[in-house]
C-alpha cells in the first residue's frame, strides 16, 4: 500500500478509513518501494517495530533469512534481541576444512547440524512467544533510547545488547571472547535460549578467562599492572593474558610490581615466547622465557612455597588460563584458537612468582597449545593430564598446595639446576627436570598424574592444538636463562641456552606437545609419552617442543603430552602413577639431571602436593618442574 502523505503530515482526513497506509511508526518504508509494512497492532510505545514485523522476521520464507546462524535485532539500529548466535558461513567453512584435514568431518557435520538446530529452535520459540519477545525488545529499545538520550536510532554509541563494545578496554580485545558486557540490557532471548551455546561473547560471561569472575576486563586484556602479579590477582581487570601489547602480559611483563613472575626478567614473556606469534604471553620476542631466569628466584622466596606462578598458596586456582571462556578454546595465551597457551595467564597468583616470567612462556599462542591455558577444564588439574604438559603439575600456579614454585623457583638451593621451570614441579624435590632421577616419571611437564597442577603447558586445554607449537616454543620458556643459580627457576634447568624450555632449543615444535605434526595434542606437553621429559632439558637438542613431542626428538610427542590414559579425573588424590602411561625414564633428558637432588624437597609444598595429586587443579598448576619422582 502506498503511504498516506497526509497521515505523515498528521492531517489525514480519512483517518482509519483511509485507503492508504498509515504507518504507525511514522517512518517510511524501504526506499525501493516496499510499502507493505503492516503497522501492527496498537502500539503504545514508539518503537520502530511491532509484533507483526517481528513475527514476519522470524518466519522462514517470509522475512527470515536462509542463513540460520545469526543474531537478531528487531529493527534498524535496535539493539540485539537474540544475541550471540552469529556465525558466518566462512567461519563454518574454515572449521569444516580443518576437520576435513584432520579427518574428523563427521564432527563438523554434527556441529553444523547442532548449531542450526539450536538456532532454529530459538527462533521457533521466539515466534511462538512473540508477545514476550516484543515486550522484551521494547524494553531493551527503550532502555537504550534513554541511555542514549534520544531516539535510539542511529548514533547510539554502542548499544548493542551486549553492551557497548569494549572499547573501553585497553585495546586488545579480549581474546577469549568473554565480552565484558557493559551494562546494557541483555537480550531477551539471549541467555535463556542461547544458553550461550555459541560461546562467544555472551555477555555476562564475564568471567575472565582466567576464571576470576571479577575481572572486568577481558581475559587477555592487559592486566595493567595490577597490584599483584598478574597471576594471581583476580581482580585485575586485565585480561588473562594480557596482551602483550600491554605491559604486563601475564607472563610477560615483569614490570608489574609484583608481576606474576617475579619480574626479574623483564618482560620476557612468561613463556619465553618463542617467537611464535604473539602469543598470549605476548611477547613474541623470544625473550627469556618466563621460566628462564635463573636469577634469583622469581618468586622470591625460595623455599617458600610460593609457586612460581604466583603464590601458590592461594588457591586461587584460577587456572592460569583461566578457562577459556566457552567456546573458544581460549587458551591461556589468548589464542583464540583453541587451546590456550600454556601459560596462559596469570590467573592465579601463583604463577607469578617465578622469577622468570615463566608461565607464560608458552605463550605461544599458536594454536592451541594451551599450556596452561587449557581452557576448558575447570581448574582441575587435569591439565596435566594427559599430557598437558607444560610443566605438568603445578607448573603453573602452584596450584594451591605446596607453594608451587613456579618453575623451580623456590628451589632454594637449587643449584642452578635448570630445573627451573619444571623443577618447580618437582615439588620439593630438588630434581628439576632431570635432576634426580626420580621415580615417577612422567614427564615433567606432563605429569598427568600429578594432580592439580595444571601443567604449564599444555594443560588440558582441550585443545587441540594442532599446532602446538611448542608451548615453550622457541625461546625456551623455561629454560633459557636458566643460568646458574638455580633459583631462577628456569624451567629447564639453567643455563640452557635459550633453548626453549621445553625442550628444544629453538623453537622446535611445540613445546607442548603436539609437535607440529600432531594435531591437537592438547597438552603442552603433548602426548607425553615417552620421555618427552626431555622437554625439560633445555638443551637445544630436543628439538621440537619440549613438551610435546615435537617432531623429531626422540622423546617426541609431547613432552607433556603424555596422554596417558588418564583422562582427566577431576579429583585430586595421590598421583596415580600407575595409570600414567608415560613413564619417566631417568636420564632421558638431560634436564632432569640438572634438577637439584633434593628438588623434591625443595619444591614448595603446594607444588608438591599438586604434583602428587592426581590432577592439577585448574589454576593450581604449579609452576615448578615436576619432580622426577612424581612424574
Amino acid at each position, binding site marked *: 500500500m502506498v503511504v498516506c502523505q497526509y497521515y505523515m503530515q498528521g492531517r489525514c482526513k480519512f483517518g482509519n478509513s483511509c485507503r492508504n497506509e498509515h504507518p504507525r511508526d511514522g517512518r*517510511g518504508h*524501504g*526506499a*525501493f518501494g516496499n510499502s*507493505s509494512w503492516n503497522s501492527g497492532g496498537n502500539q503504545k510505545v514508539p518503537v520502530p517495530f511491532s509484533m507483526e514485523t517481528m513475527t514476519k*522476521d522470524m518466519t522462514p*520464507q*517470509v*522475512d*527470515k*533469512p*536462509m*542463513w540460520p546462524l*545469526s*543474531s537478531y*535485532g*528487531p529493527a*534498524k*539500529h*535496535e539493539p*540485539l534481541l537474540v*544475541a550471540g548466535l*552469529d556465525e*558466518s*558461513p*566462512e*567461519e*563454518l*567453512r*574454515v572449521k569444516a*576444512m580443518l576437520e576435513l584435514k584432520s579427518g574428523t568431518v563427521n564432527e563438523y*557435520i554434527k556441529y553444523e547440524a547442532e548449531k542450526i538446530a539450536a538456532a532454529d529452535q530459538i527462533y521457533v520459540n521466539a515466534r511462538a512467544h512473540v508477545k514476550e519477545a516484543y515486550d522484551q525488545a521494547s524494553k531493551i529499545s527503550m532502555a537504550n533510547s534513554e541511555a542514549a538520550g534520544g531516539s535510539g536510532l*542511529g*548514533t*547510539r*554509541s*554502542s*548499544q*548493542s*545488547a*551486549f553492551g*557497548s*563494545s*569494549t*572499547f573501553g578496554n585497553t*585495546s*586488545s*580485545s*579480549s*581474546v577469549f*571472547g568473554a*565480552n565484558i558486557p557493559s551494562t546494557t540490557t541483555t537480550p531477551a532471548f539471549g541467555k535463556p535460549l542461547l544458553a550461550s551455546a555459541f560461546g*562467544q*561473547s555472551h555477555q555476562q560471561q564475564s568471567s575472565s578467562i582466567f576464571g576470576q569472575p571479577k575481572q572486568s576486563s577481558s581475559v587477555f586484556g592487559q592486566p595493567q599492572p595490577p597490584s599483584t602479579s598478574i597471576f594471581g590477582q583476580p581482580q585485575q581487570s586485565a585480561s588473562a593474558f594480557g*596482551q602483550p*601489547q600491554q605491559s604486563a602480559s601475564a607472563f610477560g611483563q615483569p614490570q608489574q610490581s609484583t608481576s606474576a613472575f617475579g619480574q626479574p626478567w623483564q618482560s620476557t614473556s612468561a613463556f619465553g615466547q618463542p617467537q611464535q*606469534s*604473539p602469543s598470549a604471553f605476548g611477547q613474541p620476542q623470544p625473550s627469556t622465557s618466563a621460566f628462564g631466569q635463573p636469577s634469583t628466584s622469581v618468586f622470591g622466596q625460595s623455599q617458600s612455597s610460593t609457586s612460581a606462578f604466583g603464590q601458590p598458596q592461594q588457591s586461587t586456582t584460577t587456572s592460569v588460563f583461566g578457562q577459556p571462556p566457552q567456546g573458544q578454546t581460549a587458551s591461556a595465551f589468548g589464542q*583464540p*584458537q583453541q587451546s590456550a597457551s600454556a601459560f596462559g595467564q596469570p590467573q592465579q597468583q601463583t604463577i607469578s612468582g617465578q622469577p622468570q616470567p615463566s608461565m607464560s612462556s608458552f605463550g605461544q599462542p599458536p594454536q592451541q597449545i594451551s599450556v596452561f591455558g587449557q581452557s576448558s577444564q575447570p581448574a582441575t588439574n587435569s591439565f596435566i593430564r594427559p599430557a598437558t604438559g607444560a610443566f605438568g603439575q603445578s607448573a603453573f600456579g602452584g596450584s594451591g598446595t605446596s607453594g608451587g614454585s613456579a618453575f623451580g623457583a623456590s628451589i632454594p638451593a637449587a643449584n642452578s639446576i635448570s630445573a627451573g621451570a619444571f623443577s618447580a614441579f618437582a615439588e620439593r624435590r630438588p630434581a628439576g627436570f632431570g635432576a634426580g632421577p626420580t621415580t615417577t616419571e612422567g614427564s615433567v611437564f606432563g605429569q598427568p598424574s600429578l594432580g592439580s597442577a595444571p601443567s604449564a603447558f599444555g594443560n588440558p586445554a582441550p585443545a587441540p592444538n594442532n599446532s602446538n607449537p611448542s608451548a615453550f616454543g622457541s625461546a625456551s620458556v623455561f629454560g633459557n636463562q636458566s643460568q646458574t643459580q638455580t633459583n631462577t627457576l628456569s624451567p629447564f634447568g639453567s643455563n640452557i641456552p635459550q633453548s626453549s624450555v621445553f625442550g628444544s632449543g629453538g623453537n622446535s615444535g611445540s613445546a607442548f606437545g603436539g609437535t607440529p605434526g600432531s594435531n591437537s595434542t592438547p597438552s603442552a606437553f603433548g602426548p607425553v609419552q615417552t620421555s618427552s621429559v626431555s622437554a625439560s632439558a633445555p638443551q637445544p637438542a630436543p628439538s621440537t617442543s619440549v613438551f610435546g613431542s615435537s617432531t623429531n626428538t626422540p622423546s617426541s610427542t609431547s613432552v607433556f603430552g603424555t596422554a596417558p590414559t588418564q583422562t582427566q579425573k577431576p579429583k585430586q588424590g595421590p598421583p596415580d602413577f600407575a595409570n600414567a602411561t608415560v613413564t619417566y625414564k631417568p636420564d632421558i633428558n638431560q634436564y632432569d639431571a640438572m634438577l637439584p637432588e633434593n628438588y623434591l624437597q625443595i619444591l614448595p609444598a603446594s607444588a608438591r602436593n599438586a604434583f602428587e595429586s592426581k590432577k592439577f587443579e585448574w589454576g593450581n598448576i604449579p609452576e615448578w618442574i615436576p619432580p622426577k619422582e612424581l612424574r
Partner: protein
Amino acid sequence: MSFPNVSTAPARKDVEIRGPPADSISSLSFSPTADFLAVGGWDNNVHVYEVAGNLDSRGVAMYSHQGPVLGVCWNKDGTRILSGGADNAARVFDVQTGQSSQVAAHDAPVKAARWIESPQGCILVTGSWDKTVKYWDLRSPQPIGVVSLPERCYSLDVVYPLMAVGTADRNIQIFDLRNPMTPRKSIPSPLRWQTRVVNCFLTADGFAVGSIEGRVAMHYISQNNMANNYTFRCHRQDMKQASKVESVVYAVNDIIFHPVYQGTFATCGSDGTINLWERDTRTRLQTLEPCPGPVTSMGFNRSGTILAYAVSYDWSRGYSYMKTGHPNKIMLHACLDAEVQRKANFPRAN
C-alpha cells in the same frame, strides 16, 4: 558496444575467465592502475589475471597462503596486493618482484585487509575473527596499533579517512582514520540480521551494509544526512508470483561502488543474481542474468567498464551443498552506460 534496446545476446554475454581457481572464490579486486584482477579463494591461492578490453584474459601470477584466502585488495598505485587468510596472516605480494611476504599476524583468520593511503604514508589494516583490528607498517613485524572490537570482524572497508568495520552481533564500528585507535562511533547495524558486508561510499561520507536477510542499508555518518539513510530489500525470490509476502530470503554477499558514477553500486547474493542500483535516486538500474550458483564477490575495473564477479559456493547452505560439480568461475561483464548511469539524467540509448 551494442545498443541497449536491441537485444544482441552474444555481444552482451558475459565472458568467463580462463583458468579459474580450483576451489571457491572468496574475494576479487581489480587493480586501480592497470587491468589486472586479483582473485583469492579457498584453494589457498591468490591468482592474478590480466583482463583485456575485449574481455579476454589470462593468468599472469599467483602466490599462496597457508590457508584459504578470505580477502584481497590492491594498493593505490597498483604495485602491491594485500591478502588476508585463514592462516591467521596477511600477505603482501609485490607485483614487480613477484614475491610475497607475510606482513601481519592475528590469532584467528584475517577476514579483511585494506590499504590505508593516508597523507602520512601507507599503512595496512587487517580485521580478524580474533576481534581485533590491527594496523601495520610494512617495515615492522609488530602492529603499530591494535583496536579491539566487540566481536569478530566480518567485513571492513576503507575510503580515507573513513573506515567501517562490520562485526558479528550486528555491530558496526565507524572510524575516523585520523584518530585510528578509537572508533568514532559504534552503532548497531541498520539491518536486523548478521552483517555480511560493509562498503564505504567513495566520497567517504557513509557506507553501505549488506546482510544475510536480503537487505541493504545506506548509511551516512553525518547527523545532517541522517534523513538520507534508508534500507531496501533485494535478493529475495518470490514464491508466489503476485505476493510479496512469501519469499526466500538470500544473503547479500557483496556490495561495490562504481568508480566513476559514484552513486551507482552493485549487489550480489546467494541467489546468484547481480543487481545494479543507484543510491541517490533509489532506483534499480539493471539486473544481470542469473548465475548458476551464488555470487560471492565482485569488482569493477578502474574505469568501471568491466564488472567481474565470481560464481562459486558460498557455504550458504552448509556443508552438504558443497558438491564437486558446483560451478566455480569468474565472469566478466562489459558494462553499458545505461546500466551504470542514472536513468533520470541520461537517455536510454547509450
